[in-house]
């Protein structure tokens, strides 16, 4: 599917590469193309990958424009709301991070123009990667409020995708509301889910967490809300509302570890009120999705 958005002249360079092992493709205008394979960055050459920068293929600004044109299906207006937030999601849950000149008006971002950097992130499904944590999160059809902690690129999204599927498959009575702000957990494109998140998931995509939490609880009556990349500044209120409404919440957050999390605003409030009952810490130490530990509401390690 990544092939569909690549410029014609690039496609031949990727023919020898296996997309199953590629995590990221980084394209910067007039700079070498970098491919991240299983956590290691290499330069793309005409015959494969190398660590020698001199052999690398240079990406042109026009190549980036062509990728954006293809990724948006020649309909920039349809994806501008995503571009404003610095990304766009295409078929297969592939998330393209974009960088360029931000156009603002009245303190609001209108768009990003002259896009000159792209980070194409290719999701991979790792079956049962959340199974160890599942046993600590779900008990007698009751889902514990859980926070997944990991730095970027350590497999949070893959983890909660699998967790959603595990809960859904093993507990059909549990209704899950998936708040997929960037449409990358379920890879929903044009209303179709490209990645399986189980049979009992209702999905909100491309909307704010505040909207999804408030309206989702009212209209879909979920038992669990699963969401990606929360911000303790903005989203804690919505999470508290959900929990006090009797809805469990599973969320992810960017942090290196529990100690890093302690420095975040509102952490004390979160800990004091025991908002989350389980903390799952992931890292990419032994590849994305490495368990660093599962902690209880008092931050006592229950699984290592």
């Amino acid at each position, binding site marked *: 599917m990544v092939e569909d958005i690549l410029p014609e002249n690039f496609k031949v360079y990727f023919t020898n590469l296996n997309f199953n092992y590629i995590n990221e493709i980084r394209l910067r205008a007039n700079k070498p193309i970098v491919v991240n394979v299983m956590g290691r960055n290499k330069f793309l050459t005409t015959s494969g990958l190398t660590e020698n920068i001199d052999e690398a293929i240079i990406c042109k600004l026009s190549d980036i424009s062509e990728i954006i044109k293809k990724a948006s*299906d020649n309909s*920039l*207006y*349809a994806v501008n709301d995503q571009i404003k937030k610095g990304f766009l999601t295409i078929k297969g849950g592939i998330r393209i991070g974009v960088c360029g000149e931000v156009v603002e008006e009245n303190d609001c971002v209108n768009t990003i123009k002259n896009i000159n950097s792209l980070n194409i992130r290719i999701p991979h499904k790792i079956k049962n990667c959340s199974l160890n944590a599942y046993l600590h999160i779900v008990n007698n059809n009751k889902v514990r409020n859980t926070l997944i902690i990991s730095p970027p690129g350590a497999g949070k999204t893959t983890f909660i995708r699998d967790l959603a599927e595990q809960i859904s498959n093993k507990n059909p009575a549990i209704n899950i509301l998936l708040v997929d702000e960037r449409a990358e957990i379920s890879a929903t494109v044009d209303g179709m889910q490209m990645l399986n998140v189980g049979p009992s998931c209702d999905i909100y995509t491309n909307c704010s967490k505040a909207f999804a939490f408030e309206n989702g609880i009212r209209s879909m009556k979920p038992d669990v809300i699963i969401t990606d990349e929360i911000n303790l500044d903005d989203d804690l209120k919505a999470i508290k509302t959900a929990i006090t409404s009797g809805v469990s919440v599973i969320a992810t957050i960017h942090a290196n570890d529990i100690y890093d999390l302690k420095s975040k605003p509102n952490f004390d409030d979160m800990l004091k009120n025991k908002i989350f009952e389980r903390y799952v810490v992931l890292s990419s130490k032994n590849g994305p999705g490495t368990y660093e530990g599962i902690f209880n509401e008092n931050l006592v390690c229950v699984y290592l």
Partner: protein
Amino acid sequence: MMIKFVCLLVIFVGVSYIGISLSINYSKRERFFNELISFCNVLFNNIKFNKSKLKVVIKENLDNYKTELKDYLQNYLENKEVKISLLTEYENSKVNEFFVSIGKLDSFGELNNIENYKIIFNEFYEDCKLNNKKYGNLYSKLGVIFALILVILFV
């Protein structure tokens, strides 16, 4: 006698056909711009309310069009550039300009762009409507009359 009759019939049908074709051309042009304006409206509404992608809107509505617009849109989906024989050089350039311009702006810009082109297409449509009224019937009648005159002359 029989050959003469056949020849006269051929002349009558041929000359009438030229007149009627010219007349049909006028009505086809009118219908083309009518459909193009209707496509602009559909696109406008879809962008405004659904932000649907261009290709999705085209695919969903393709069967609603009966004129050359259908072929044009079909070719657009396949990224092929085509010239519409029915239109003048200037009209063709404006239609192509429109299809090249869409999809490159945010929704606000797109809606303005569509509105601007709709004004141009409306002018084309009004011209075609007027010409169809003026010359459409005239050419078909002239064709038949001229064919009759030729037949009478040859008889």
